[in-house]
Each structure stands twice: as C-alpha cells, then as structure tokens.
C-alpha cells in the first residue's frame, strides 16, 4: 500500500491509493495540523503548565521546589492580591460603560450628512492607537500642573487635580483612558448594527406612535442584539486583559493601588520585585478561572447558535 501525500489528480491512477480512498476523512486533519500544532505548543499546553508551576516555588532558573497549595494559601492573606482583585472588579463594572457610550455616539452619528464618513472614521480612530500611546497621551492629559485636564478645570476656578497620584482616583483615571478606545470599538459595532435594522419595522412602529426612548428600547435595541453580544464579549475580555495602560500610566502605583491581577502577576514573576514564577502562576490561575466563567458563557451562547444553524 502506497501512501501518496499529494497525488497528481490529472492522471487517473489505475489503483486508488489509501489517501484517495480516505481523502474526505484525512484532508481536514492535514489542513488542521499546522494550526493545531502551533496552538497546542504555545497556548493549550502552557495553560496546563501554568497550573502545575503554580504548585512550585521557582525563581525561573534554579531547581523548582514542590510546595503544594502554599502559593494559594499565601494569596489569601496577601493585601496586594486583594487590592488587585477589587480593581479587576472596578475594571469589569466601569469598562462596560463603553457599551452604552458607544451606542450613544453611534446614534449621534447615524445620519447621512455630507462628510459623515470622515466623522465616523475619526471617531473610531482611537481604537487603532496602541494602548501604550493611549496611556502616554492620557498620562500627559492628567499631569497635575501642566496637563490639559487641570488647565481646563482652572478655567472654571477648580484647583489642579493629580488624578494618577491619588490612590482613590488613579484606577478610575486609567479606566477612563481605557474607555476611550473601547467606546470607539463599541460605536463601530453599533453603527454596523444600526445599518442592518429593518426599516420596515421602524416605519411600522412609527405609524403606531412609537418614538424616542420607547422606539429605541422596544424596537431598535432588540434588533441590535448581535452587536451588543459582541460588544459585551470584547469589553469583558478587554477589562480582564488590562495591563498596558496600568504599566504605562502608573506602573501599579501610587502605593500599588492601581494594580490588577494581570499586572500584579507580571510584577511578581518578572520584575524587580523578584522572580517568583510559582506565585505569579498562582495569580494567573486565579485570573484564568475568573475568565473561564465568561469563556464558558460565550462558548455556550455560540453552541446554541450552532445548534440552530446548519
């Protein structure tokens, strides 16, 4: 039996080879192989490795020492971990404001006046900036004396503020910076969604006397459901992934009050605070488990869709 990987199909072979006979069954796996290989090596296997590393005390170079659940026990009493966890919650809650804000801007821009396309693109442009640039831009915007924010408050007779230097407000300041590109993203999702709203339903509702908020709530928003779902997914993921902004704007400070799990993990495992890979991995596992709740929900939603479809 000869196995020919890519048989020449122009000439009709006298005997059908093994590949020819199993073509339909084998081909998908041949096409999948490179992607699965890469994904397994760099994504799937590392997840399990992190779980196992979290049970060790390891500085990344020397011998790893098995410590069982000790890292997790330490987490329970770690104040910095608690602060990070609370900040993650703040991110989750306030980052979701991007969804109504994006809808609002989309409604504002959903007109056909001259130049509206340019306006839409420019409103969207913050999304394509790197988070590093967004962080720098906002850090300068917030500067206590020189920053534009303090200067603008000055016009109204309000004192200068040091948003990023204030332990209470710094996290909200960073979230506000993150909302800027995220709102742009949600806006573009809703603009696309609004484009596809059935005009006949809108007209019918108008004839029935629906307008304004009622129209929005009962006729438009239900039709925007797919856009809302995606906006929700990307915003939740974005909130839990927040790292760049914090690293650039405050580097976790002041007094570690702007840390989130993703940042704290990096700090523990890879920065001047020491190379505690095991402890870092334990933090990452907690973050992963939080994310897993959402991932499971997203997958479940997709699964229902697939069932409904072909």
């Amino acid at each position: 039996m000869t196995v020919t990987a890519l048989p020449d199909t122009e000439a009709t072979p006298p005997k059908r080879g093994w590949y020819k006979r199993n073509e339909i069954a084998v081909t998908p796996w041949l096409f999948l192989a490179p992607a699965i290989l890469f994904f397994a090596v760099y994504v799937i296997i590392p997840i399990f490795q992190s779980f196992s590393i979290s049970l060790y005390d390891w500085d990344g170079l020397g011998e790893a020492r098995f410590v069982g659940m000790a890292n997790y026990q330490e987490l329970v009493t770690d104040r910095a971990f608690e602060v990070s966890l609370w900040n993650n919650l703040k991110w989750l809650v306030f980052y979701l404001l991007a969804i109504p804000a994006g809808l609002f801007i989309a409604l504002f821009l959903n007109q056909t006046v001259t130049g509206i396309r340019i306006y839409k693109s420019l409103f969207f442009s913050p999304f394509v900036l790197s988070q590093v640039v967004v962080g720098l831009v906002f850090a300068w915007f917030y500067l206590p004396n020189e920053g534009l924010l303090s200067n603008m408050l000055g016009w109204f007779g309000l004192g200068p503020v040091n948003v990023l230097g204030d332990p209470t407000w710094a996290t909200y300041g960073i979230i506000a910076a993150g909302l800027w590109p995220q709102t742009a993203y949600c806006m573009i999702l809703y603009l696309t969604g609004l484009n596809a709203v059935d005009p006949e339903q809108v007209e019918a509702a108008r004839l029935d006397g629906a307008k304004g908020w009622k129209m929005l709530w009962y006729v438009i928003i239900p039709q925007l459901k797919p856009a809302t779902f995606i906006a929700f997914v990307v915003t939740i993921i974005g909130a839990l992934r927040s790292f760049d902004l914090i690293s650039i704007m405050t580097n976790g400070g002041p007094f570690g009050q702007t840390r989130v799990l993703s940042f704290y993990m990096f700090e523990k495992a890879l920065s001047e605070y020491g190379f505690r890979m095991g402890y870092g991995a334990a933090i990452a596992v907690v973050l992963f488990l939080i994310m897993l709740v959402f991932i499971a929900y997203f997958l479940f939603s997709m699964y229902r869709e697939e069932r409904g479809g072909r």
Partner: protein
Amino acid sequence: MFPRPIQQASPAAQTTYKTLLPLALIMWLLPLIAVAVFSVKPASDFTQGNYWGMPGSFDLIDNYSQVFFNSDMPRYMLNSVLITVPTVIGAVALSAMAGFALGIYKFRSNLWVFFMFVAGNFVPFQILMVPVRDLTLDMGLYNTKTGLVLFHIAFQTGFCTLFMRNFIRALPFPLIEAARVEGVAEWRIFWFVVLPLMKPALAALAVLIFTFIWNDYFWAIVLTQGPDAQPVTAGITSFNAQYRAAYHLMSAGSIVAALPPVLMFFLMQKHFIAGLTLGAVK
C-alpha cells in the same frame, strides 16, 4: 432608519446638528490633538511653562528629525515591521487552512476543535506567560524577533480561525459539492475554489492582525529586551526615558509609533471595519 434622518427635522435642528458634529469630534480627540500640538512646539516653550499657549515657533521638522535621526526609533520601527509582517502572513495562512477544514468538512470532533481555538483566543496572557517565556528561552529564541513571531502566529491563529471558519461557512456549499462531483482533489478545491472566494476575509484579517501585533506591548516586554529585537511599543518607553520631560520629542515619538496602524486603518478602512464587525449583524 433610526434615529429619524436629520433632513426631516427643522432647519434650526439641522444647523445645530451640523455645528455639534465638529465640536463633538474636537472634544473626542482632544487628548490626541494636545499631543499633536505638543509635537510641533519648540523645547523653549516647555522650559518657559508655555504648555497650552500658542506654540512659540513651528518646529515640526526639527522635532521629528530628532526622532528619526537622533534616537533608536528607526530601529524599533524596523523591528516592528519585521515582527508584524511575518506574523500576519503566518497567522493568515495557518488559519485559512484550519478555517477551511472546520468550515467545509463534517467530522465528529469538528465543533470541539473549533471551540478549542475560540476558547484559547480568550485566555488571559498571564496564564501563558511563564511557560511561553520558558519555552522561548529553551529554544534560544529569547530576545529575538523570531521568538515573538512564533508566539504571535500561534496565538492569533485562534482568532483568525474563528473568523475564517465563519466566513467559509457562509460560502455557497453547492460550489464545493459540484467541484467534488467533477473529481477535483480536495486540496485543489481549497486552492482554486475556496481561496479566491476568501479574498475579502484574507484582506480583513491581514489589516486587523497587523494592527493587533503592531500595538502589542505585553509580549514585547516579556520576550524581548533592548533595541535589537524590541518593537516600537516597548521601545517608546526607553525613548521617553532618554528624553525625560522633553514633551515635544516624546509627543513626536508617540505619533511616529502610532502612525503605521492609523495609516493602515485609513487606507484599508472597508476591510478593517468588515473584519471587526463580522458577526455584529445576523
């Protein structure tokens, strides 16, 4: 159409809307405009405390040539290009094949493999950080562009496969059946039938991945250090350390770093938005 077209409103409302539009845009882009203004100001403005007044002089060329000729910025930019372009090609190629397999063939584990890609695409980076850094070190690829590219290709394949598979699903299936009846080999169906139809998806993904990878910061600082391999997002922090408190140069540097994805977006707008909003309409 909702809201009601402004053309049907009173002339006063129309005028209000048309004046509100540019005002809202200026408010929206204010932080960015501020940085753009900073980047053309002379150094003397900052030493004299003239942060928000009129620029003392228009120093666009001076400031930007400092960035291009007097810093590591060009090297960082080149690194970014050498990281981003291979990643785009690799991720698009792998996911086109994977998407074809998952979109066309019916086999028992199809949905599970698909969900593996989707779920992996959502995981927090930190759960991968320690093992991936370790793996990269073991392969001797730490602080190389190759190390970053390999990881990026692997991770982006998750999102790209989700995208490609859904796109291929929407293609007319009878086309493939017809080709099979004709006796066309499966890999030829991929190459000659499906791939040409996927051009819009390939373009959309290419621009999206370009932006994502260009803007990556986390993996850049985990897997590389120094101007030999670091992309511009990581390089900008060393640039800023070099020109501490020289706001005109730091602003110019940020604008240079941000420009390629912005250009990419404005040039390929249609594809970019098609890629981002796939699935936003049913």
